[in-house]
Each structure stands twice: as C-alpha cells, then as structure tokens.
C-alpha cells in the first residue's frame, strides 16, 4: 500500500503512514466515516422508498390526464371531484375517453392480532383501458361482486397464502362488515401511508363504503385522441373547467408533482432529507476532528517541513491524502453495512429499498467531497505551525 501510494503521489505517502501509525485512532475514524455513510445511505434509501412507493399507484393506470380536486397533492388522497366535469371534458373532441377513480382506505385483519391498512382503489369495469396493459387480464375477474385483487407486497402478507388465490379458490375475508373475495394478486408494494393495495370494481367499492357516492369520485382520468397533444388538451381543460376547485394536469406531471410534494413538503420527506443532512454533517465533523487533531499533534513536525521549504500545496496534498484515505476506506464498510440494513428494512416493511449503483456512486462522491471540505478546513490550522518557533 505504501509503495502504491508512493508511486501514485510521487512522494512518501506521509498521510497514509501517519493515519496508520495510530491504529486505534485510524479504526475509530474509519468506523465514524462508515457510520456517517450508513446514516446517509439509510436516509436516502428511505427517501428512495418514499418516491418509489409514491409512484407505485401511478403504475396501476394507463392515462394521459388527471383531474383532481385543487387541494389534492396525492393520488391516494383525492378529494371530491364532481363527475359532471368528466362529461364536460368528454365534450371536447380531442378527449377520447374518461373514467372516475374512487380511492379510500380499508382495514384487513390478516391474522388474529394483525391488521393491514389497505389503500382501496375502485374503478368501473368498462374502464379497463385505463389499467396498465399488463394488469388487465387480472382485472377481468373483478366483475364478480365483492371480488378484489390484493397487493402481493402487502406488509405482513404471506407469500404462500397469496399463491393460493385464484378466482376458483378465493379467500373470503370480512372488511367493513362486508365479505370481500380475494381472487388474485398484483404487485405494487407498501407505501408510507398504507400497508398495501386492494383493487375492486367501483360497484364493489360502493358496497364496501356505503358513504361513497358514484357522483363524487376522487379523481378523473382521461385519454386523449390519437395524435392529440396532451399538453394542449390540458390547457384547454384548464380554461373550461373551474380552476378554483379543480386541478388539471398531465398524468406524468401529477406523478412528478406528487414525488416532489412527498419528499419536500410532507413531514416524512423532510425528516429523511434532514436525516441525510445530519449524516453528511456527522461525516464532515468526524473527518474534520481526525484531521485537525492530526495537524495539532504534529504542529512541530509540520513547522519543520515548512522550514525545510515545503509549500502550502504540499500541505494541502498531505491533508487531502488523509481525507481521501478516510473517505475511501470508510465508504466501503459503510456501504456493505447499509446494504445489509436495506435488506432488513425491505424484509420487515415491504418498502422498495435497494442499493442502486447510482446511489452508491452518488454517496461515494459525496463522501469524497465532504472529506475534501473537512480537509480544506483542517489545513487552516496549519497556520499555527510557525517555523520561527522551532529554534
């Protein structure tokens, strides 16, 4: 290692020799950097899970335009949108078709003392074209009253049980004092606001939630005519629909909006963002502490180097050498620990957490930059190394 670094740097790797000279201190420093990395990884993982799970419900649908209540920030938390607005929209020649979507929550007692809070999505059976193509065959089974498809990734769910479900061998549960027949599964995943998803026809939803009225869906989905511009249609709709109570957006824009809402305005998103910041700060402070202690402990030696004619570029490269060593040797153990924690979180929570290459690369470069910043700050302490004091 010493030889390799010597070749790389074109000088003695003093930083490396110095860091490894105090083995205990070095190990502690690396553990600190690794810990900061784990913090950042876990926070980013949760943030990723948040955005990932935010977009999951969108994957259920195949639509061009979403009409929601003006105060709705989320697909899962709609508002009342009068169904007449769908008819208004359909009067435009460029709008091909539309459907209402009903969304609510329902509790499912999985076991004696285990309740999953499910997001219930309902839509008319004739609106099958608004369902993602891959999921359409499954949806056909929902025409039988009280039938439902259950999210395979429902938190607390059991793989074996889900495998037994079929239209011929449904499992019957009681939800809201109504019988619900689970006739199959689809894969969506738990989120931060629900443990899983349940899909039914709109008629089944009304039976399950008698307070719901078919005239007030949560959202309206539209498809435009082939060749028609989605953006232009959105613009026209914004003109003709009341804009004080309604929000008209392209379906993809709605997803992007919700993603940024969840991560930057909702408490969970802010907490994870804050956690990431804390992780970065912890890392910077630890590395700064190690480097500045190192400088303080070797002030006389550094002053000697100054007297010998080493310039500030040398000292900068020396501190950066140490910073980079801490960054690199601290990152990998941190990343391995984080991937273990990811697996654990994924298993326990059903949240879509995973170590992506891009996130690993981002955290790695972030670590390098954070360490470089600490190093740059630590070099300021070198000003105290005055060679005139040596004689």
């Amino acid at each position: 290692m010493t030889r390799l670094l010597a070749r790389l740097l074109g000088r003695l790797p003093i930083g490396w020799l110095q860091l490894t000279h105090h083995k205990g201190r070095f190990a502690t420093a690396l553990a600190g950097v690794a810990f900061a990395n784990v913090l950042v990884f876990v926070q980013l993982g949760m943030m990723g899970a948040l955005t990932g799970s935010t977009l999951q419900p969108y994957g259920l649908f195949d639509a061009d335009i979403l009409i929601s209540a003006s105060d709705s920030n989320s697909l899962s938390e709609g508002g009342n949108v009068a169904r007449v607005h769908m008819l208004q929209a359909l009067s435009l020649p460029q709008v091909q078709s539309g459907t209402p979507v009903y969304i609510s929550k329902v509790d499912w007692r999985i076991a004696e003392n285990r309740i999953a809070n499910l997001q219930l999505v309902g839509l008319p059976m004739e609106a099958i074209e608004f369902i993602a193509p891959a999921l359409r065959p499954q949806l056909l089974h929902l025409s039988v009253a009280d039938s439902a498809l259950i999210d395979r990734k429902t938190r607390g769910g059991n793989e074996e049980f889900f495998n037994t479900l079929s239209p011929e061998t449904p499992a019957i549960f009681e939800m809201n004092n109504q019988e619900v027949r689970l006739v199959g599964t689809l894969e969506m995943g738990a989120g931060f606001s629900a443990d899983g998803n349940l899909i039914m026809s709109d008629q089944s939803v009304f039976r399950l939630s008698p307070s719901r009225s078919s005239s007030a869906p949560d959202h309206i989905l539209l498809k435009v005519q082939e060749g028609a511009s989605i953006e232009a249609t959105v613009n026209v709709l914004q003109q003709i629909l009341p804009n004080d109570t309604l929000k008209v957006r392209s379906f993809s824009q709605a997803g992007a909006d919700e993603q940024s809402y969840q991560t930057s305005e909702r408490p969970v998103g802010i907490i994870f963002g804050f956690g990431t910041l804390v992780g970065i700060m912890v890392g910077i402070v630890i590395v700064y502490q190690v480097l500045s202690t190192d400088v303080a402990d070797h002030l006389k030696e550094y002053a000697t180097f100054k007297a010998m004619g080493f310039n500030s570029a040398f000292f900068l490269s020396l501190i950066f050498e140490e910073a980079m060593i801490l960054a690199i040797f601290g990152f990998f153990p941190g990343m391995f620990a984080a991937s273990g924690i990811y697996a654990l979180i994924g298993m326990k929570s059903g949240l879509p957490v995973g170590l992506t290459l891009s996130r690993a690369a981002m955290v790695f470069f972030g670590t390098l930059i954070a360490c470089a910043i600490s190093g740059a700050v630590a070099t300021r302490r070198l000003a105290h190394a005055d060679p005139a004091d040596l004689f």
Partner: protein
Amino acid sequence: MTKSFAPIAANGLNHWFGEGETRKQALYDLNFEIERGSLTILMGPSGSGKTTLLTLMGCLREVQRGNLSLLNHELHGSDEALKISLRRRLGFIFQAHNLHESLTATQNVLMGLQVHENGSSHRGDVKQQEKAARHILSILGLEDRLDYLPAKLSGGQKQRVAIARALVSTPDIVFADEPTAALDKDTGLRVVELLKEMGRERGTTTVMVTHDNRILQMADRILTMDEGHLFEGAHT
C-alpha cells in the same frame, strides 16, 4: 554562481519583538559578511539574540529594518515564494529533532530530498533518493537503525537523523542551534567534521550556535552576541 559574493551579508540589521509599550529591541545595527564554505560559530549569553539572528538568516522571520542578503537575494521585503525557494537551499538543525513519528529514519531523511522534487516531475527517483538517505545515515553511524521509527531511537540517534535530514540535500548554508547538545562528544565532533568537509568540497557555509569548547577550536570564525550587539571573536 560566482564565488565572489558572500552567501550571507547584513547591513544595519535591527530587530524588535512586541508592540507599543512592550516593544523590545533584540538586535542592534548588525553589520557582517560570512564567507562561503566557512564554519562560523555564534556565541553569547542566554537572551543575547543568537536564535533571533539565526531565524532571520534562515528566512523564518520577517526582516524589519536594515538589509540582509542571503545567497545574493535581499530578504527585506521579499515575498513568501522567494523565501520558500531559498529555504530549500538551506539546512536547519534544530535543538529539538522534530522527526515525524510515523516515518522511519530513512523516510525522515528522504523528506529532506523530496522537498526539492515536490511539485516537479522528478518521479521515480525514489530509489536514488533512498540510497542517498541511507548513505548519509551510515556516515552518522546509523547504518543499523535505518528502518527504525523515532520512538525506537535514543535522543542522540534521533538528533543524528535530524542532522542527516538537514544535510542530505547538500544545502548551500546550514544553520544549527546547539546541534551537538544531545550528542556525545565523539558524535558531536563527527558532525562538525562532516560540516567542515562539506564546506571544503562543496562550499557549504555553516553558522552554528554552540558553547562546546572542542568545536570552538574547529571554527573558521567566531562571533559573539551580547544584548543584541555583535562582536568579532570569542568574548567569554
């Protein structure tokens, strides 16, 4: 480089410490020239200004008033870059050895060579440099301590490593402040002999603060400081 100029020349050199009320003069109107290749010994009682003069000549302190020329460069008002480049042509032997604890004896000495390579493209010369470092350590009687860390060396051995570090780059001028204090008599003499030899063969100029009588006899010239004034010869 012509041999005619004096490597060190002072003209009306004064120095003060402190500000305002506490301002105190440490050097008074020094005028001297030091000849190339010579061994000059600086004597004088404690607090007389020997170290102050040494640090001024070594570009470690700003010249406040008067002129001080080092290797044909005026130090009064000179910028940091010039001072750094001049320092690279000097060798310092401090009372405290200040060796790097994590570097072996050889590696510590190597630093004395690498400062000259630093930033330049002279990579891959490490083998050559290591040879030079081992060589000078051997001259100073440390051939069997080459790869020892400072913690495993005695005080005298550490001081010899520090001397090797100062001399390995064959500096133009060596400044030494009581360099032999930590050494036994024989080693002390060996060091001074080495300095004299470098003076004869390469024109290395040495200015040394010492009170060691045996070394006084080997000096080409003795200067004495007393309360900030400089006198020719030994005044004890």
